[in-house]
């Protein structure tokens, strides 16, 4: 089961677009697996897609277009004064030291979260194979953070590591570590990286457990018989076979770090101290919803979107072509 989940993900993505674009009557083609199943006409599939498309149009495309328009305007929150300012919102952002710093922080934060989440998830997924007693309990414990609301997670970690009252902070202090995320920006950054990674860990874990489970035992055993040690077996057999999952997680972790960590940051540090944890998505929120600076906030959203799309395209270009999705079939 896990094998097919991993293998079909890209396949469904590819299958969606031709179905939408197809104007001429469907030409029956000889295909295997998932692609072989399909609809004859185009009415039913379009009908089935309609609810989802309506939701997308209403909650994604219309706001996105309006957001894009706002990026070129200077306006008061109530919308009575609207000045067209062209690219000014964007150029003033690119000139601003605060924005460039926020960009740098986002890169550091996202890279650290991605690497930490993935490597910890991988180690734990490996351990799942080795755990024999209490395996279900082990899995349940690992899956728990995912069920906790991000804001709660942020608040709990902020409390645990609060230098005045937090038990974890007291422990660090007793070890002689001058831990103070309220004044030291690097400590605060470390705190949100740990919280965000902890929260997202089980996502990577689930996919990696599934992917590892899908690697045929026979291949690994054959390699072992040939004299390959555990490390060698992992690097040359397992890793290439789970590469599609690794690639998928890399993208998902990046997207998570860039977009979905808002609540954690809001609860754990509020972007502080001195904006040391104010990553791009948090800055968009502060400028738009607290400072009511809609033009700048919209311009930031546009830049953030360009940034995320560029990153994903680069990842696809650089990595995807080296991955074979057929390995596990």
């Amino acid at each position, binding site marked *: 089961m896990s094998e097919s989940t991993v293998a079909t993900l890209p396949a469904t993505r590819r299958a969606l677009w031709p179905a939408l674009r197809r104007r001429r009557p469907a030409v029956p083609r000889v295909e295997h697996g998932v692609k072989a199943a399909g609809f004859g006409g185009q009415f039913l599939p379009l009908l089935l897609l309609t609810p989802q498309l309506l939701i997308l149009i209403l909650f994604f495309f219309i706001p996105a277009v309006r957001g894009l328009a706002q990026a070129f305007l*200077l*306006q*008061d*929150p*109530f*919308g*009575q*004064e609207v*000045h067209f300012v062209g690219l000014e919102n964007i150029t003033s952002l690119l000139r601003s030291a*605060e924005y460039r710093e926020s960009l740098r922080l986002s890169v550091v934060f996202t890279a650290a979260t991605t690497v930490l989440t993935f490597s910890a998830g991988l180690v734990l997924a490996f351990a799942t194979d080795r755990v024999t007693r209490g395996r279900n309990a082990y899995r349940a414990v690992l899956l728990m953070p995912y069920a906790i609301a991000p804001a709660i997670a*942020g*608040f*709990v*970690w*902020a*409390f*645990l*590591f*609060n*230098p*005045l*009252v*937090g038990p974890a902070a007291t422990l660090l202090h007793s070890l002689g570590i001058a831990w103070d*995320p*309220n*004044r*030291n*920006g690097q400590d605060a950054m470390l705190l949100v990286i740990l919280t965000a990674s902890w929260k997202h860990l089980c996502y990577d874990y689930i996919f990696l457990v599934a992917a590892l489970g899908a690697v045929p035992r026979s291949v690994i055993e054959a390699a072992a018989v040939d004299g390959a040690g555990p490390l060698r077996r992992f690097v040359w057999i397992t890793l290439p076979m789970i590469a599609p999952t690794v690639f998928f997680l890399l993208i998902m972790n990046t997207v998570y770090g860039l977009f979905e960590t808002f609540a954690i940051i809001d*609860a*754990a*540090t*509020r972007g*502080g*101290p*001195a*904006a040391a944890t104010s990553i791009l998505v948090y800055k968009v929120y*502060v*400028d738009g*919803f*607290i*400072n*009511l*600076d809609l033009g700048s906030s919209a311009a930031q959203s546009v830049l953030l979107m360009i940034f995320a799309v560029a990153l994903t395209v680069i990842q696809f270009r650089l990595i995807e072509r080296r991955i074979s999705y057929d390995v596990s079939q």
Partner: protein
Amino acid sequence: MTPSLPRRTVLAAGAAALPLLHVRTAKAAPREIRFWHAMSGVNGERLEEMTRQFNASQSEFSVTPIFKGTYDELINATVAAYRTRTQPQLVQIYERGFMTMLLSGAVVPVQELMAAQKHEVNWGDFIKPIAGYYTHRGLLAAMPFNSSTPILFFNKAHFSRAGLERPAETWQGLEDQLRRVKAAGGPGSIMADDYHWSWFENYSAINDYQYATKNNGFSGLDTEFTYNRTPVVQQLGRMKRWMDSGLLEIAGQGVSATAVFTSGRSATFIASTAAHSAMMAASGLEWDAVPLPWEEGRTPRNSVIGGAVLWALRGHPEADNAATATFLAFVAKPETQVWWHKATGYVPATNAAYALAKSQGWYRERPTQEIAVQQLSRGEPTANSLGYRFGNFTQTMLAQREEAERAFAGQKAPQVAMDDAVARGNEILRRFERLNAGKY
């Protein structure tokens, strides 16, 4: 089939119909208006109680309070509602949103509304720093609702262990005392989350230091911050020095500064007078309060307010405006003011309400609740102490905090930090000026 069944059904049907009937008759009569607010917890319950009192006091109008989240969330909700023409009749907006609301074109100045609806309010009786803060072109633009000002709470036990009775009047004296408390094995002090309000803004007002040109923004949108050329820089240096020597602590996230103080682990706490409710709820805490300190050699002036006001929004029928005006007249009544003051710890907005509370002996029971009123009405307000009128005030304040925190962390010298805060703030002010040119 048992014979009792039909009877039971009839009874049940009757019981179900009763509240329905009641709702119908209740709904038919009074004109209902919506009042969006941002008061949570105990103060939220008090606010709802106030609207219930109003609704019970007459039968023509009915006010429905709706909690919309924090002040920030509320002003956002108001903007969104106004743009989709679903705005409520009345909203509670914090003091930093004053310029945004005033120039929004979405509000009816409250004094104009009350005059049009023929409600007599003694406008001259409002306490000066409150009226001054919200008056534009001689008219009160919004109804003062929950006004507060910071005072200094202190832990009596920690002070007496160091042989001290009460905090000194000046910052210099206080620093000396805090060192003695620390030397006697006592704790440091906890810094409130909205420290910029007490330590920079009120500090400037009380010591009569200029914060910005054009009378702190009152006489023009082309105002520029000047606090980087006043002792505010030394004040920032003082905060950093206190933090370095453990005299001042930041609560940060995960715990509230108020909770740290009420748990007895801080010597002093400079916070809004609205913290009174938390102080009184804390058990086993020996606390007292004094006015905010000032700089040695200065004559202390009045402090400035914080809190929120009620704005009447445009775009409603005449009958709604009548309801809004009647409710606002109820809010402005001395009896309501005194009730609110006692129930929440916010200051009474009018001199009549203050006199009434005093004549009822309230301050003999609760002397610390009088500090805020006395501090606010200390002397005649100067151009530097009347208040602050900046566009995008939240944004300039956040930029200032960011730079101050760089100084706390030792990344920037206090002078550099305040220079940068002023430069960033002025840029934000220019953005507002450009958008609102000619409107103020």
